[in-house]
Every structure is written in structure tokens, then in C-alpha cells.
């Protein structure tokens, strides 16, 4: 006999389970429309692989898994896809998300099924693939993809398989009725799980408010030879323990059955434990033995606002409204509608949302049953919350720190280990919505982490930018100094040139005087003729240059005028060449500076250009001097 351990805290809320247990499971009729959210599990949403207008068969895959943490989705019955669009999904915030909407045709026509005759011949990875392809995610609450939980790394030895049949939330009886009517399927699912993870111990945990099913489950488990499946001695045992909320929490159940605590932030696998809900076990049996993917589940419909509370075997995607109507829902008495139980369930925005893979209960309480909470009173630190907390936290301190947004203190007091079971809020005499404070604080802490990372990044970027700017500034200063020096040098050069030019001009004057003197003598010479023509041309070009509207004509004219002038006075051409060369040098120099500042790859080319321009300047200057010397000679 396996020992059982107690966990700290816990509460004993009114169970309210008998209402929905008076009848056997009812198979709900097929609703005219099924709405299937693409995200019914933890992880990446599935991707639709059908089009609007497609006819789908029951069990046909309609959306495929995306990425490793994702599961596919299947058509729960035959019908036509009439929409793939945003619809309100079952979510605490009443969010909208992508859904595939199927109009059912009532034929419930299956796709071809290929059940496996003997799964014991299959290996672990094949079985996991089947489970993964069947779209199975945890059916107890969180909806974590089952295949990932089972696909344990080879270096983590799993010795214990825990079946969670606790169902500690008040009102919910989905698992209880499942055990009453599907014991064999559960046991078959357990056997497949045993085949996959090969534990030495299988612990089937049931709260002692469900003792009526223990014999049935024990007998069903006895039909399987677990030693043959695992290849070594394996004991399977049904263990009952005192009813206490939240004993069905994975961490709490592990503590009850093994006395071990899952390390904070860790996984049960680290302790060699895998925990599965019994609803998931049935889904696995259906997938492996019947080739039926996860397309339906057991959902409890209860609460005083329904006249016929019971458990439904319902297709996924069935609107809550449709299911409630089967139970004679009294809309005018219903104060709120809860998906899940009264402790951890969330209030629904409207009745059109569908049943999804994790919907274990639809609770329709009256105002008398679950009254509107009164306004919160002051926290008197009575400590009832700390007595109730299954994680051994100090909720009153967390509340104090949450009010003051003391995030460091909250982390120090392990707010991350809060499982949001609601036991503290349940016992709080001041009616403080403690869990809500913790949820908000957790978001704040998460946000702070993100902000912190962003700030780090921004700081890195800022530092890098400062460094770059400083470098540019330094380079600019250096370049400016270089330019100033160059300019100074150039000015000095020009100063020398001016002296030269004055000498040259004086020489030119003398030449002109000479020319004027002998102008008559050379009237018939070809050179004079040329000058005349040039002058004529120049005057024509001037007219065009000043009067024409056509820019090209103007430019041509200008050039012609220049040519004419040059012909008349060849020295001008040479002087202009010097000017041009100087301009080019300064342009090229500034380009070099820019290039250096920007680390431009063309730097070398620009430097060459400067050198070239300088060479040109030198040759132009030389040409002028030569010319003048010639003329003067």
C-alpha cells in the first residue's frame, strides 16, 4: 500500500457534486453549427487547412499543428465549413480568435478509420506520433499538448506515472462520471501510457468523495499486464485520499502521492514523474485503439440556473447555449456563467462561445448560490489565507506588497509559485480578490522583466551610438584642422601666384602695347583674320546667350562665346583652367574628408582625384607661365 502525504493548507468548499451525478452521461445532440477555435491548447495555434465551402468528414483533420508545441484540430462531425473567422472564444477576457465554423449535416459521417489491432507492437515514437496527430492536449484544465509531456528525454528516467482522477473543484463531475462509465477505456489508456513511458509505479489518485468508482477502476486496471508492457515489474495502484481542495493541482497531487515537491520553476519529469488526467487517458485510448482523434469530451452542465444538471458527451465546438438548452437553462435566474469550476473557472462573456478541449464544466449558478462579492474590507492580516495556501505562501504579505507594487518583495516572497487556486480569496473574511492582485502583479513582474531587457538593449545601443558620435566628432575636428591647414597652404600658394600673375599681366600689357603698335603691319596676316571672325562669332553668341530661352542653346552659345574669347585671348583659357583645377581640388578634398568620416570605401578614389586635380593645377599653371613667357619673349 502506497503511503499518502498531506499538503499544506487547502480548503473544504461545498462540493455540490451530487446534482450532476444523478443521471448517466447523456450524449448531446449535434448542434447545427460548431465553432472550433484554432487555439484550444497551450502553444502555437493550429493552422487551418480547409477552405470555406469545403465538405469535411467526421474526424478529418481541419487544422494542422504549427511548430513543436501545438496540436492539430479535427472536424467533430461531418458538414460544411462555412466560415474561418474571428469569433469570441472561451477566455477570461472574452477575447476573439480565429475559429473554423462548421455547419453540420447530421449524417455524422466518419472518415476512413484504421484502428491498430495491436498497439503493443508499436514503439514509443510511433505511439506519440499517433497521440500528437489525434490533437490530444491535457483535458484537465491547462491544455498542454500531451505528446510533449510524454516525449520525455531519454536521460530523464520516469519511474512514476500518476493518473489524476482527483477532480477537486466543486460542482464538476466530468471525470467522476467518466470513471463510472468508461473504466475500461481509462485502463486501456493507462496501459498505452505505461507502454510509452515504462514506469515502475502507476499511481491512480482519487479523492475519497468518489469511492464508488474505486472497485471498477481497480478491476479494469487488473485486466492489463503492465509488466509485459513496460518490460519490467510495474505495480498499478488506485490510491484514495481525503477530499481537500486543491488536491487535484498537479503539484499537490504529486505531493500527496509521493511526498515530493516539484522544484520551483521545474517540471514533474525532474522527479521522474509524469502526470496525466484520466480524460486524456480515454482520448489516448480512442486515438490509438479506435483511430478516433480528439473531437468530443465529457462536460458537466450544472448550477441552480439549470433544471436538469448532468454530464454530456459533447462534440467540441458545441455552443454553450446549445448545451445549456439541453439542461433546461433558466436564463432569467442566471447571474453569471462559468466555464470550469467555481474556484478556478472563468466567467463567460456570452453563451455563444463553444465547448473546447479543456471545458470540463459549464456552471450556471443563481445569485443565491454564488452571490455577488461584497466590497472588499480592510486586510486585518488574520492569516486565514496563509493557513489555506497550498503553496505555503503568505498571501496577506503578497497582497500588501502588491498594493504597494513592491515587485522585488513580491518575487522574494515567491509570487511565481502561486498556482492561483483561489483558496486564499475563498477564506478571506474581508472579501479581498487576492488572486486578482497576484495575477496583476505577475503581469507587472513579467512586464518589468521585458522592460528591463529592453532597457539593457537600449543602453547598449545608446552606448554604441555615443561612442560612434564621439568618434565622428573627433574625426570632424581632425578633418577641420587638416582643411584649415590645407587652406592656409593654398592661400600662401595663391599669394605667391598673385605676385607671379602681376608680373605676367605686366608682361601682357607690354605685349598688347606692342601689338597695338604693329596692328597695321599685321592687318592682312591670318592671325588678325582669325581674331576678326572670332569677334563676330562672339557678338552673335552673346546675343543668343542673353536672348535665347532655350537652355541648351544658351549653353552652346556661352561655350561658343568663350571659345571666341579664348581665340581672341588664349591666356583666358589657361587662367580658367587654373581656376577649374583649384575648384576641383577643394571639392575633391572635401569629398576625401567626408569619405574618411564615413569610412567610405571610395576614399582611395577620392584621394586619387585630389592628386589628379593637383597635378592638373600644376600643369595649368605651368602652361600659363609658359604661354606668357612665350608671348613676352
Amino acid at each position: 500500500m502506497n503511503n499518502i502525504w498531506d499538503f499544506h493548507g487547502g480548503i473544504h468548499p461545498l462540493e455540490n457534486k451530487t446534482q450532476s451525478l444523478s443521471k448517466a452521461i447523456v450524449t448531446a445532440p449535434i448542434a447545427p453549427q460548431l465553432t472550433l477555435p484554432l487555439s484550444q491548447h497551450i502553444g502555437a495555434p493550429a493552422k487551418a487547412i480547409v477552405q470555406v465551402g469545403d465538405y469535411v468528414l467526421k474526424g478529418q483533420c481541419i487544422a494542422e499543428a504549427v511548430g513543436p508545441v501545438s496540436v492539430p484540430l479535427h472536424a467533430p462531425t461531418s458538414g460544411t465549413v462555412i466560415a474561418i473567422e474571428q469569433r469570441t472564444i472561451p477566455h477570461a477576457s472574452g477575447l476573439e480568435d480565429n475559429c473554423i465554423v462548421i455547419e453540420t449535416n447530421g449524417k455524422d459521417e466518419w472518415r476512413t478509420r484504421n484502428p491498430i489491432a495491436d498497439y503493443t507492437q508499436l514503439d514509443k515514437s510511433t505511439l506519440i506520433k499517433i497521440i500528437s496527430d489525434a490533437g490530444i492536449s491535457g483535458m484537465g484544465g491547462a491544455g498542454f499538448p500531451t505528446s510533449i509531456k510524454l516525449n520525455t528525454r531519454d536521460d530523464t528516467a520516469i519511474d512514476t506515472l500518476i493518473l489524476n482522477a482527483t477532480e477537486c473543484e466543486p460542482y464538476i463531475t466530468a471525470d467522476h462520471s467518466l470513471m463510472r462509465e468508461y473504466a475500461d477505456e481509462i485502463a486501456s489508456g493507462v496501459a498505452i501510457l505505461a507502454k510509452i513511458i515504462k514506469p515502475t509505479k502507476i499511481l491512480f489518485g482519487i479523492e475519497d468523495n468518489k469511492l464508488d468508482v474505486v472497485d471498477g477502476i481497480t478491476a479494469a486496471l487488473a485486466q492489463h499486464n503492465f509488466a509485459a508492457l513496460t518490460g519490467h515489474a510495474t505495480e498499478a495502484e488506485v490510491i484514495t485520499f481525503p477530499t481537500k481542495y486543491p488536491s487535484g493541482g498537479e503539484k499537490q497531487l504529486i505531493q500527496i502521492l509521493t511526498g515530493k515537491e516539484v522544484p520551483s520553476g521545474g517540471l514533474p519529469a525532474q522527479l521522474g514523474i509524469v502526470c496525466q488526467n484520466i480524460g486524456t487517458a480515454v482520448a489516448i485510448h480512442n486515438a490509438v485503439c479506435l483511430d478516433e482523434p480528439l473531437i468530443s469530451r465529457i462536460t458537466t452542465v450544472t448550477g441552480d440556473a439549470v433544471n436538469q444538471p448532468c454530464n454530456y458527451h459533447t462534440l467540441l465546438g458545441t455552443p454553450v447555449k446549445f448545451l445549456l438548452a439541453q439542461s433546461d437553462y433558466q436564463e432569467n435566474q442566471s447571474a453569471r456563467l462559468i466555464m470550469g469550476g467555481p474556484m478556478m473557472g472563468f466567467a463567460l462573456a456570452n453563451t455563444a462561445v463553444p465547448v473546447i478541449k479543456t471545458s470540463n464544466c459549464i456552471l450556471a449558478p443563481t445569485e443565491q448560490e454564488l452571490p455577488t462579492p461584497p466590497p472588499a474590507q480592510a486586510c486585518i492580516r488574520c492569516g486565514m489565507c496563509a493557513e489555506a495556501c497550498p503553496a505555503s505562501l503568505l498571501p496577506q504579505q503578497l497582497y500588501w506588497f502588491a498594493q504597494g507594487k513592491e515587485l522585488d518583495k513580491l518575487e522574494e516572497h515567491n509570487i511565481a509559485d502561486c498556482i492561483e487556486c483561489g483558496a486564499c480569496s475563498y477564506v478571506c473574511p474581508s472579501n479581498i480578490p487576492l488572486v486578482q492582485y497576484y495575477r496583476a502583479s505577475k503581469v507587472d513582474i513579467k512586464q518589468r522583466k521585458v522592460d528591463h531587457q529592453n532597457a539593457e538593449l537600449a543602453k547598449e545601443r545608446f552606448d554604441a551610438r555615443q561612442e560612434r558620435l564621439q568618434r565622428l566628432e573627433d574625426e570632424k575636428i581632425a578633418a577641420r584642422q587638416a582643411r584649415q591647414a590645407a587652406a592656409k597652404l593654398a592661400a600662401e600658394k595663391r599669394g605667391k601666384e598673385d605676385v607671379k600673375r602681376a608680373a605676367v599681366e605686366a608682361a601682357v600689357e607690354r605685349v598688347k602695347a606692342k601689338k597695338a603698335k604693329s596692328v597695321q603691319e599685321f592687318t592682312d596676316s591670318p592671325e588678325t583674320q582669325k581674331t576678326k571672325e572670332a569677334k563676330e562669332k562672339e557678338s552673335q553668341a552673346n546675343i543668343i546667350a542673353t536672348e535665347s530661352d532655350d537652355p541648351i542653346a544658351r549653353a552652346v552659345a556661352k561655350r561658343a562665346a568663350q571659345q571666341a574669347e579664348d581665340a581672341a585671348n588664349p591666356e583666358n583659357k589657361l587662367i580658367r583652367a587654373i581656376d577649374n583645377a583649384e575648384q576641383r581640388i577643394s571639392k575633391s578634398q572635401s569629398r576625401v574628408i567626408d569619405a574618411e568620416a564615413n569610412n567610405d570605401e571610395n576614399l582611395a578614389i577620392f584621394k586619387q582625384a585630389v592628386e589628379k586635380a593637383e597635378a592638373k593645377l600644376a600643369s595649368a599653371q605651368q602652361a600659363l607661365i609658359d604661354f606668357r613667357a612665350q608671348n613676352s619673349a
Partner: protein
Amino acid sequence: MALMRITSPHAHNKQSTSDVMKLVLLATLPGVLALTVAFGWGTLINILLASIFGLALEAIALAARKRPIAFYLKDYSALVTAVLLGIALPPYSAWWILLTGMFFSIIVAKQLYGGLGYNPFNPAMVGYVVLLISFPIQMTTWAAPIELLPASVSVPNLWDSLLIALGFMQLPTVDGFTMATPLDLLRQNNALMIDDLKQQYSQFGDWGGTGWEWVSLGFLAGGLFLLYRKIFTWHAPISMLVALGLMSALFYDGGSSASSGSPSFQLLTGAAIFGAFFIVTDPVSSAVSNKGRIIYGAGIGILIFLIRKWGNYPDAVAFAVLLMNFAAPLIDHYTQPTTYGHSKKSK
């Protein structure tokens, strides 16, 4: 009908802070009854006047702080403070003593800090200590147990008791109407063996002080009732009583003149039991974790004995509680319980 959208949990155990306070008030009844039987109507008048002042002061403070008055008065916390202070003060205390005490309890110790839940010190004990330091004579004049009164002295009836408290009548000045309490006698004693002391002064009863034994047992009954109803955990009160008992056993030398009385005497006299179940258990000003509350309670028990034996005051619950109120945040810092998944064996 529009569907209500609130977050989980949706269920509540339907116990309110007002209920908790009402249970505490109810639990004081046996002790108050014993006090009335033993010392006359004085305590009831104390409680009556303190309650009126307490509620009025609370209302004024709430109005000044622009808080909803009715909502906060309905938490009954002011009433609890008033009743506790009324019990702690000597019977037939004058109205101005009560008013001053309640002013310091409600206005200074509680509302100035932000009201219920934000007071670092126990309000009733703050009021009590202020009075004890300011008016030592009035505060140490305790009515004699009725059973010890000479036949010539008549006990004031309810109406006369009210008139005395309001100052329209004098307390009977006859010798013997007020007496030193057993703890006073023990403090002042330096010559007599405990047994001789007991024989000489009728204030000493078989176990504790005459009349006090029943008062203590009355508060014990109330305290156990609250424990049974899980209004508080056993940690702080039991640890305080154990610490006080152990200290007095350690220093009880069998009854010499230097002795400080047997453990039963120490526990059943004065405010020890009342303090353990009604003052030490005040959650607002105590340590929060169970481990912390054990340390907190033990600290109070030890301090009570130290002050009773070596201090200047015959009784010491109020001082001990206030001193440990100071220490509570420090205790909290070092006694944070191990969270699930953080124990050494899980790492």
C-alpha cells in the same frame, strides 16, 4: 439578465471580517461576566463609555479622512478596541480617562496610520500605555474584589456606577473599597515568604488572585472558543503562555520572599490570559507566519515576566505587546515559511 464578469474564485466561505470581530466580542463575554461578578459594574460601564467614545471618534476620523463611515463602522473593529480597553482599565474609571484612552487608541494608534489593517501597534494597548504613564494613580487604583469588601461597604449599583464614571458621584472612599492588586503586593513584597504573604493578604486566592482566577478562566474559555472557531491559530497565545509559565517556573524558588510567585499565580493573575487570547492574537500588529507568531508570542511571555519581576510596573502585558509589535516586521523577515518547491529536499 447581463452576465456578471468577475475573476475566479467565484465561491466564498461567507465569513466576513465583521463576523470575525463579532465573534471576538462574543468571546469576551465570560471574562467580562467574571469581572463584573468579581469587581462590580465598573467594567461594564467602562465598556459602555469606551464603546460610545470609540465609535464616535472612529466616525469623526473617517469623516475627516473622507471615508464611507457606515461601511467602516460595520467592521466592528473600533468596538473591539473599545471593549478590550474597557476591560483592561480599572473598573469605575472616569469618563475622561476612557476618552483619552480611546482617543489615543482610535485616532493616534489606528486612524493616523491609515485605519484598520495599517496600524503597527495594538490600538488598545497604545491607549492603555498612554494612560498608565500619564495617570499612574488612577490607573493603579483597582476596585477590591466584592467578596473581600467589608460588610459596611455597599457596592455601587449600575446607575451609581455610571454616575461615578461620569463624575457626578464619588467612588466610595471608605477604606477597603480599592485595594492593591495581588501583583502590586508581590512587587512591593521584600520580606515575607509567599505563603505568609498569601495568609496576610486576602487578595491572594488559591491559584492566582482572588476574583482574578475566575476572570482568567472566563477569558480562557472565550479564547478557546475563538481557537475552536479558527479565528486565530494557537501559535502566538500558547507560545506566550508557555514562555510566561516557563519563566516563572525557572524563577520560582518555592516561595521565598524574593520569589515572584508560582507559574499558576503568574498565569492566572493580572492580564496574562486576557492578553494571550485577546491582545497577542491581534493579527494586524503581530507577526504573520506561524513560526513568526511562536517567536512573537514567546517574546511577549518573556517580556511580561521580566517587567513584572524587574520592571517598574506590576503588570506588563501592554508594554510587552508594544515592544513585540516593534519586532514583528523583523520577525516576519526571518520567518518566511518555505514555499512549495523551495525546500532543500526538492532542490
